[in-house]
């Protein structure tokens, strides 16, 4: 367990040293400040569009950051050759994968807290409201979403370089988020093997839309009931575990070529 936490800590330190996070925070601030200066038909002090745009940006930036951090961990270690000293420590490959995932997940989650705090501050300054309980609920589900996403990134990076892994993770996650909820309606007009294939994809890919509480947060609805909330969190952890397991299976027998370095 200590080894896992140490690996996670190195991921944290490396990400904090890079500029990605600060660029995203600056971009978020710039977008929100630009939105605040809009003169909407002569009206001022409108807030919900800032909340909505801010939450969308927080999700997009968290998505970019999570994929960017997770997919480069293993390829970077292999490219620089530090994988050999790491595995000779000895660190098991499963510990390496879990440590890298925990680090990527943790830093993405912490960054999202910063995004949410910035947004809440701007909304409050504008006279708006952020329901604290609902915000915490929304962040927890968002955190679970990032867990699955970083596990996907780690899985693909076990056998691909970081660019290919990032592309595949990005495309799959975007497709899953946007199209999976429409699959039952799309499948109504199909039959036979096409319908079966569509439902295989529907049940195989993770359902990211379950982790999206933005509409509740923007329009100040009440919090979710705790039963479905717990079930969705459990589903998120389960999907993360599945992807990590697949990643370990893909990585445990992988041979590293010294001559490449």
């Amino acid at each position, binding site marked *: 367990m200590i080894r896992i936490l140490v690996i996670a800590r190195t991921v944290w330190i490396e990400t904090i040293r890079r500029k990605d996070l600060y660029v995203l925070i600056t971009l978020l601030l710039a977008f929100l400040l630009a939105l605040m200066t809009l003169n*909407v*038909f002569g*009206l001022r002090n409108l807030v*919900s569009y800032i909340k909505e745009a801010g939450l969308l940006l927080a999700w997009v930036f968290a998505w970019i950051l999570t994929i960017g951090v997770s997919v480069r961990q293993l390829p970077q270690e292999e490219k620089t050759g530090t994988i050999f000293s790491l595995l000779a420590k000895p660190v098991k490959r499963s510990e390496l994968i879990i440590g890298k995932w925990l680090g990527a997940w943790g830093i993405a989650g912490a960054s999202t807290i910063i995004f949410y705090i910035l947004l809440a501050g701007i909304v409050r300054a504008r006279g708006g409201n952020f329901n604290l309980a609902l915000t915490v609920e929304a962040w927890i589900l968002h955190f679970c979403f990032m867990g699955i996403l970083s596990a996907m990134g780690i899985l693909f990076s076990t056998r691909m370089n970081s660019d290919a892994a990032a592309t595949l993770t990005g495309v799959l996650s975007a497709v899953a988020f946007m199209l999976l*909820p429409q699959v039952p309606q799309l499948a109504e007009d199909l039959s036979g093997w096409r319908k079966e294939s569509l439902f295989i994809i529907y049940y195989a890919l993770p359902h990211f839309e379950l982790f999206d509480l933005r509409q*509740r947060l923007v*329009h100040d609805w009440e919090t*979710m009931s705790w039963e479905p909330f717990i079930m969705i969190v459990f589903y998120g952890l389960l999907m993360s575990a599945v992807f990590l397991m697949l990643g370990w299976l893909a990585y445990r027998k992988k041979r590293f070529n010294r001559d490449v370095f």
Partner: protein
Amino acid sequence: MWRGEGGAKTLYARCFTSDASRNSVRRTLLIVFVLWGFAFALACRLLSMPDQQKRNDESFADKMLGGIRYEISGELYEHADSVFHKGVGHAPKESVPDWFAKMRRQVAPRGHAHLHHEGTLEIMPWLYFSTRADPGNVTAYAVAAYWLAREAGRLDLAEGVLNEALRNNPSDYRVYMEKGNLAMKEGKYKKAARFLDAAYLRLSGTNNMDEVYPPAAAPETTRDKDQVRIDRAEILVYRGLLYEMQGSPDNALRCYREIVKIFPGRVNLKERMIELEKNGRSPTPPEKLAETLLFPRRYVCAEDEDE
């Protein structure tokens, strides 16, 4: 000259000691020069355009988005409707009642709810973006003006919105119709009459004025044709009321007869016509009826009507 001492020598050693380094530096310099040239040409072009030419050019939305801006404008308008219903969209019925569908229902807000009073103004930014994406989206302008006048009580802002709609859509009857309605709300009856007359002239198939005032877009769909009939009736009923206020019952009757031709089932209107023909006026004063029509107590949503 590069064979100097200290930093210059180091710079030379770093940059020019190999063919690969030299080529790389040359390539970088070439790219920078091309980019600079492009930026300079673009700056000259932008700064040298006279104001008149700039005004006649396509809008920014046209240049950046092309034809897709109409779709984007429509989506933004739909989103304003979703915001009005507190984030509850027109979600299709789940055809596969599995665990995921059940969880989706728990996650997404449900129920039929509206924003009220000043909260309604939260839809304005989306209507604003919709009009920026497509300045020809008169519906977005009209809805914005309606809610600004109704919930915010800002008739001045509503007028500003409609003035902008008029600048961008000078031949669309709907803008004149909304301006006429707004003027009636303000109590400016002469101004209202002028705008309602202008709206009526711009309706397609009216008084052979299509050549002088060509309709903004020929109604292609059944829904558009139905809406034009409803709008024609609305223009005529307000114009009829204005004629009554001016003491011209005959002109008012002319308007009402045309409405009855379009919608023969309007019983209340037929009763009013009978009173006007018999007594020259109706028991319900035209001002009171106009107020009832222009300021309904409750906003009726399409979903309310279905229920």
